[in-house]
Structures are given as structure tokens and as C-alpha cells.
């Protein structure tokens, strides 16, 4: 076979492409694959934004339950939201529950992360898997088993404490996983140097270790907080008669009432989260925790 023929049938290249030096190693198939990839991924991301756009754009809409016909921009929905006393108090309640459960999860989870990252003990693998379990259990199962546990086993009235307890379990993996990951990549020789320079273990923890894991703890705290704030299924079962934002929204939709106030609330939250994300990504190293 001539060289030209060999080239023509060489895999991954073509005689035509080889003529253009800058396209060496790139056949038409390759170009299609690369740009096809970009196109496909881009379309996927655009699709991901559909609900978000719907929520944000229509929160400013006059007839905000459908896009067509679009009647105009207004802030009326926002006014409706902030003057709706029951929704505002439910939001406050959700805020308190989320903060408390995130704090409990942090107090339990940070030491647990240290244990997982630094010590070895019998049952460590089991403990690690137990920590991941709340991520996996469907909300219905967790809700049902907690409901039965609180009502039929220990006869605890459903309300604040039961919701916080459930959400703290739900949020625990969000604390443990980033903190443990951070500890695993942490160069412990700084701690050793601190000890060498005369610091006692408490000071080492306070001045060296904790500042290093602080961003991971903060990121975990925020994720646990958000998961609690926007959780519906578990709270639906274990919160009894306590007002929560997600439950109020649920009844708005199910009982066919004016659900237009939900969009401003979601938009406000998104803006806050978006700003926090941008700040965190640039100041801290939150993107490392992905």
C-alpha cells in the first residue's frame, strides 16, 4: 500500500484533515463529537434553567400563572407576599427550624468528621455509611418511620422538637462529608509544627485546625440549612400543626388558592443564595468542596 493509502485508512485521522496542519488528529467525526458535546451540554443547562426562569420572570408578572398572554410587569406579587402575615410567620418558623437543625447537625457532625478522617475504629465503615444513609432514604420513609416513632413509640408531641430532630439527621451528611473531605486533604505537618513550637493541643485545634476546616463547615452548614428550609416531605409528617413555609405553600396549591405569592418568595431566596454563592466562590474556596 502506498503511504497515501495508509494515511487514508489510519484510525482517528483522515487524509483530508492531514492536509490542513492545524487540523492534524482532528477528523470531521472528531469535530462533530466535540461541538456536539458542547451543544448537548449547553442545551441541557438551558433546560435546567426552565423552572427558575419561569419562577423569577413570572414573579414580576401581572397574570403570573401563565406566560401567554403576558400582561406586564408589576411588583404586586411581592407586596402580596410581604403583607401576607401567615406566610411571613410560617417563613420565620421555617427559618428558626432550619437554623436550629443546622446548628445541631454541625455540633454533632464536625466532631464526627474528625473521627472519620483521623481515627480508625471498629465499625468505622458502618458509621460512615450510617452518616450517608439520610441522603439516600426517600423522604416518605423517613417521614413515616419518624412519625410512628414519635407517636407510637415515645409519645412525643409533634412540633418544633420533632422537626428539628428529623432535620438535624437529614442535614448531618452535609456537614460530615465536606468537613471529612477537607480534613483528609489537610496537610497535618502544620499541626505538627505548631506542636513543635510549643502549642498545646487545644491551641493547635483553635488556631490551626479550625480555621482550615471553617470554610468546609460553613459550606456544610449552608447546605444543611437550605435542605431543612425547603424540605417538605419529612416536615409534612413530623411537624404536626406547626406552620412551616413549605407546608403553607403546599396548601396554597392543593386548595387552589392564590399561589402567586410563592414565586416572589422563591425568587427572594434564589437571589440571596445566588449572591451568597458568588461571594463564597470568590472569597472562600467553596468550589473546592464539590
Amino acid at each position, binding site marked *: 500500500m502506498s503511504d497515501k493509502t495508509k494515511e487514508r485508512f489510519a*484510525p482517528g485521522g483522515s487524509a483530508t484533515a492531514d492536509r490542513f496542519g492545524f487540523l492534524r488528529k482532528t477528523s470531521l467525526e472528531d469535530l462533530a463529537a466535540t461541538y456536539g458535546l458542547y451543544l*448537548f451540554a449547553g442545551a441541557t443547562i438551558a433546560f435546567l434553567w426552565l423552572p427558575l426562569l*419561569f*419562577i423569577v420572570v413570572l414573579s414580576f408578572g401581572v397574570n403570573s400563572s401563565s406566560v401567554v398572554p403576558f400582561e406586564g410587569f408589576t411588583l404586586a406579587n411581592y407586596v402580596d407576599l410581604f403583607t401576607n402575615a401567615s406566610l411571613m410567620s410560617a417563613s420565620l418558623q421555617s427559618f428558626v427550624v432550619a437554623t436550629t437543625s443546622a446548628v445541631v447537625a454541625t455540633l454533632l457532625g464536625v466532631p464526627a468528621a*474528625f473521627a472519620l478522617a483521623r481515627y480508625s475504629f471498629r465499625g468505622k465503615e458502618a458509621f460512615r455509611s450510617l452518616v450517608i444513609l439520610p441522603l439516600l*432514604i426517600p423522604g416518605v*420513609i423517613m417521614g413515616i418511620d419518624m412519625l410512628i416513632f414519635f407517636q407510637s413509640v415515645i409519645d412525643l408531641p409533634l412540633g418544633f422538637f420533632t422537626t428539628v430532630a428529623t432535620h438535624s439527621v437529614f442535614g448531618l451528611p452535609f456537614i460530615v462529608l465536606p468537613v471529612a473531605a477537607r480534613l483528609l486533604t489537610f496537610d497535618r505537618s502544620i499541626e505538627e509544627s505548631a506542636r513543635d513550637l510549643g502549642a498545646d493541643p487545644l491551641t493547635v485545634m483553635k488556631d490551626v485546625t479550625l480555621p482550615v476546616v471553617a470554610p468546609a463547615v460553613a459550606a456544610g452548614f449552608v447546605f444543611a440549612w437550605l435542605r431543612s428550609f425547603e424540605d417538605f416531605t419529612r416536615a409534612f409528617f413530623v411537624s404536626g400543626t406547626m406552620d412551616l413555609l413549605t407546608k403553607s*405553600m403546599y396548601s396554597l396549591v392543593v386548595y387552589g388558592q392564590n399561589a402567586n405569592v*410563592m414565586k416572589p418568595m422563591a425568587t427572594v431566596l434564589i437571589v440571596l443564595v445566588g449572591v451568597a454563592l458568588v461571594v463564597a466562590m470568590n472569597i472562600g474556596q467553596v468550589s473546592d468542596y*464539590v
Partner: protein
Amino acid sequence: MSTSTTLRQSVYDRFFESSYGEYAKIGITAGPGVVWLLLLLLFPLVFLVTISFASVNDSYQIVYEFSVSNYVSLLHGQDGWFTTPFVDTFLLSLGIAVVTTLVTIVFAFPVAYLLARASGTLFKALLFTILLPFFTIYIVRIYSWYAFFGSSGIINSFLVWTGVVSGPVSLFNYGVFPIIVALAHAYFPYMLLTLYSSLDGIDYSVVEAARDLGSSRVGVAKDIVVPLSAQGLITGSIFVFVPSLGSFITPKFLAQGKVAMVGEILADRINQIYAIDFGSAGSIFLIIPCLIGFLLIFKYADLGEMRGI
């Protein structure tokens, strides 16, 4: 050194550096977490499984005698075994969960790959763009899907308005299709982030070597990238499949009663009539896949991979 530091040091040394000090450290750090999880996570779950093998008398008291009556009534219908509505609902839920998982794999893989190859500002921008939609409150997100689908929802209204179709497209009506779309959207980040963790750990000089040896991009994807990310695929699939199987409000909003999923009927039974017998026995069908997934993760995944969820 000041006296207080020396005192702290000596107390610490006496206690923690002694032979039982290691156990004390583990006890103090992992202890509270273990107790909390055992009490609030494991015990209620075990209790639920236990009472599924008990029965309930007329005043909603649990009768603690071994009985499989709950399961029989769930599974044995008029025409014999496995002919109850519950079985049909469960099989439908399985199907929906499988399709949802496959959909997320197909759509998340390219995005995860690009994310893994990006760096610096592009990476941050891409990550932000991908993750922001998932910080919307879930109920409001479902409500937006509810508005999109349906015979008079946004999609159908738009299609009819532009004249592309003469009437609403039945695919977009409430039912299985919107459920799959909403679930795939909801659990997309779980698949994306586990795949990303996995793809991030691949040494891309292997890919370069393959390219040098003449492989096409498709060949590289098929023979190198996918096999090396297999662990991430498995983990991600579990994290999409199990929650999708047990989804509750998604079918409630988006099926409008036409079809039902397991989580939904369990929730309704418990909430409306506190049917512990039905609820506990039915829950087993969700718990078993959860446990299987749990065991798979226990065996195959490692801590470093789970960072992103």
C-alpha cells in the same frame, strides 16, 4: 510557657495519651453522632420493619404478634398473588425510577465531563450556572412544572398558539412523562456531582495517550472515560434511583390522580387514616431498594468521592 498552658498540656497528656485515651477521643468525637443516628435514624427504621410483621387492631393499637397479614393484603388480590393495585403501582414506580436514572445519566455525563475538564473562572461560572436552578424551593419548582405541563399548560398553549399542533399534545398532559421530566430535573445534581467527582479523578494523560495512539474522541469516551467513571456512575445511579422510587409530591402534583406512585399512596394512607399496617408493609418495598443501594455504596464508594453531594 505559662502555667496554664503547662497545666492543660499535662492534663491532656495524662488523659488522652494514655492507653484508653484513644478510645476517649473516639468516644467524644464520634459518640454523640453515633448515638443520635442510632436513635433517630436506625431505630425508627428497624421499628418500622418490625411492626410490618405485626398487625393493628381496630383502635389503632399495634398487636405485637408475628403476622404477615399486612403483606398478604398488600400482595394478594382477588385474582391471586401479585394482582393488587399496590403491585401495579410499585411496578410503575420502578419503571419511572429506572427511566429517570437513565435520563439523568445521559444528560449529566456530558455536563460533568466538561465541568471536570474546565478550570479557573470557567469552572466557577459553569458550576454556578449549573447549580443555581437547584436552589429554588422544591415545591415552587414542582409548581412551575405543573404550569408547564397539562393540556392547558404553558407547553401545550404555546404549541397550539404557534399553530404547530391543532390540539394539546397528550404526551405533555399530566401523567408519567411530566413526572419523569420533573424527577430527572430534581435529581440531576446528584448524578452530576458524583460523576464530576469521578471524572475529576481520572488522569487525563491517559486520554492524551490514547489520542496520540490514534483513537477518535468517541473511542476515547467509550473505552476510557466511561469505564474509569464506572464507580461514579453506580453511586450516582443509586442516588437518583432510590429517591425517585419513593417520590411523593412530584406524582401528586404532576399526575393529578391519573397515575400514582408508591411513595404517594403510602403517604396518603398514613396521613389520612394512620394506616400503620399498610404503611409499614408498603414501606418495605422502598426500604429494600434503599438497603441494596446502601450496601452497594458501602462496598464500592470511597469517602473522597462523596464530597459534592
